[in-house]
């Protein structure tokens, strides 16, 4: 498997390369978005890791440009920014998921594996309505593949879960899951159940609506 790492920080580049090599994958590195796009156009990749804060072309723009080149490749964003609004902008640009810094090697490896597997699943499945899929993806920053992954989990478990739990169960980052749950809420597929806990504020749980 080929991984493309786009990050301006040499120590992070090195760290990610070492982790990927440990997992037995090939790694290409690029120092910024522009370089990353060139490398991707030339060699391609199975999974792309993109940093947020970069000179020349920042992470959000890079993700957008990458999506123009390839609609399916999983793009994982590495960010220190925990704000949902930043996550939303990334997802709208076409990012697949997040890894919040600092990140541990085993987490990174399993996350890359998950997305590679998900990407393979859609590739092998017969493309039913490619145009419709693209529409949702372009307009709302929602990818059908990730949406299926999240909704499958809720659909098959039929219990109310917090975003936190879902995020752990499906292996996607919190901001990603949050955004997809909000999308499912809009679509009327899930409902909110408020749970009053012993301590702290009441928590919102989300449950698949039985059809």
């Amino acid at each position, binding site marked *: 498997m080929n991984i493309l790492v786009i990050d301006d920080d040499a*120590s992070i580049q090195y760290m990610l390369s070492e982790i990927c090599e440990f997992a037995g994958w090939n790694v290409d590195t690029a120092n910024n978005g522009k370089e990353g796009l060139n490398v991707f156009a030339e060699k391609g990749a199975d999974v792309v890791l993109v940093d947020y804060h970069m000179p020349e072309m920042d992470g959000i723009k890079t993700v957008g440009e990458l999506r123009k080149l390839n609609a399916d490749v999983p793009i994982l964003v590495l960010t220190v920014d925990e704000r949902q609004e930043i996550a939303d902008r990334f997802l709208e640009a076409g990012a697949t998921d997040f890894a919040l810094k600092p*990140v541990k090697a085993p987490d990174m490896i399993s996350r890359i594996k998950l997305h590679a597997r998900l990407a393979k699943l859609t590739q092998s499945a017969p493309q039913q309505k490619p145009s419709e899929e693209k529409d949702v993806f372009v307009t709302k920053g929602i990818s059908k593949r990730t949406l299926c992954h999240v909704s499958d989990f809720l659909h098959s478990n039929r219990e109310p879960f917090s975003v936190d739990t879902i995020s752990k169960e499906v292996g996607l980052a919190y901001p990603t899951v949050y955004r997809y749950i909000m999308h499912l809420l809009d679509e009327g597929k899930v409902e909110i159940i408020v749970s009053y806990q012993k301590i702290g504020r009441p928590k919102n749980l989300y449950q698949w609506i039985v059809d």
Partner: protein
Amino acid sequence: MIASLMKSWTIWMKIGVILFGVFLLSWLGPDEIGLTDLLISLGEGEETGNTLMLAVFLLVSLNTVLALFHYIGALLLGDEIGDRLNRPWLKIIIPLIVIPLDYIVINAYYSLTYSFSAYALLLLLAVLLLQAFEKDRLKPIIKTIICSQLIFGIEWLNEIPSLSKYGFGQGSISKELKDIAVQIGFEQSLTLYSLTLCLIFVINAVILAVYFSLAEQKWRIKQELHYAQLEAMQSRSGREALYLVHDLKTPLTAIEGLNSLISLKVDDSKIKEYCQKISSSIHSVSDMISEILYDDKKHWCRIKDLVEYVEASRLSGTNLNLKVDFQTDPEIKILINKIRMTRALVNLIDNAYDAVNGIEDGKILLKVKTYENELWLGVSDNGKGISSKEQKKIWKAGFSTKSHPGMGLAFVRQVAKGHGASLEIDSKLGHGTTIWIKLAERSVSR
């Protein structure tokens, strides 16, 4: 609300001013200032124009002094009650009720008629206009000066004989003086004399009002600019710090990545343990950075841990002593942004140290107590205290009793707001100050 109004001495003082104006006539009447003597000599036809002019001047001055107390008292009373109850219309309504009432009381109490006629209405209108025009920006002392000029000017209209038929100057002495002026052929001189003085003082009062309200406006704009600059400075230095803190996460990421890779690569259990320890340290640094970066980042934290953290943050390098007074279980957990709450408390502690600086048995106490289901964190000192007038201002950015720009309490207020907590100052002049941060029930867990 009404009860607190009744307790306020400033309100009673203003009511006192009005009453003083009403009863002043007993001590400062026409007899006392020699007006009666002048009237008698005028009545006997001994004296001429000079005495008449002198008598009119004395009468107008006396009327001005008498009127000034209840006008200014009523105006300031209206201002204060209107401000306190936050109902601006009271500022107009109260003088409109109180001033005519004064005249009724005076007429009932004294034998001589002190008429509330057309002139009084005109005067009332002028005063109210003044009120509306300057939008109570002026200080009471300046109001008094302008008001007295206005009253003095308008009082002269009472002495113009031709205005009598319009209801001006219906008081007994006024009438008598005007009759004498007509008899000795001084009617025109008196009209000219009165009109000139009236115009001079009324115009002067208007000019003063415009000048002072403009000056006040200018001062206000200058102040606001000053605050805006301070706030800009604060947000900028805050942003700089945020960028810096933000960048700390990048090296941390490299450390965590490689550290976790080491534990994957080696079998040595000790090395795995070290990696585990390093990793948990990295996580606590990372959490701290998140707390600094995001106000709303909060964790459950034992009060004991918060207090220890505050002590560690404040006391390194100083020989000053901070005592902690736990009036509740230190194991209680609270949902806070530990870093920011600590900075807020340290800010309060620093202020408390400044307050006891130079006092021999100065004491600073960090108090922790539960009240109903709230948790109160308080910093108290036995310094000189804060006057109630200053208490209102201290939370504002830029207020400081020291030489540096006062940002500390503005920051404390911001942190309290971020935690949904309320702030309370408990201060007595000469006894010391306690500032409480009161965390609401939902942020407390036993």
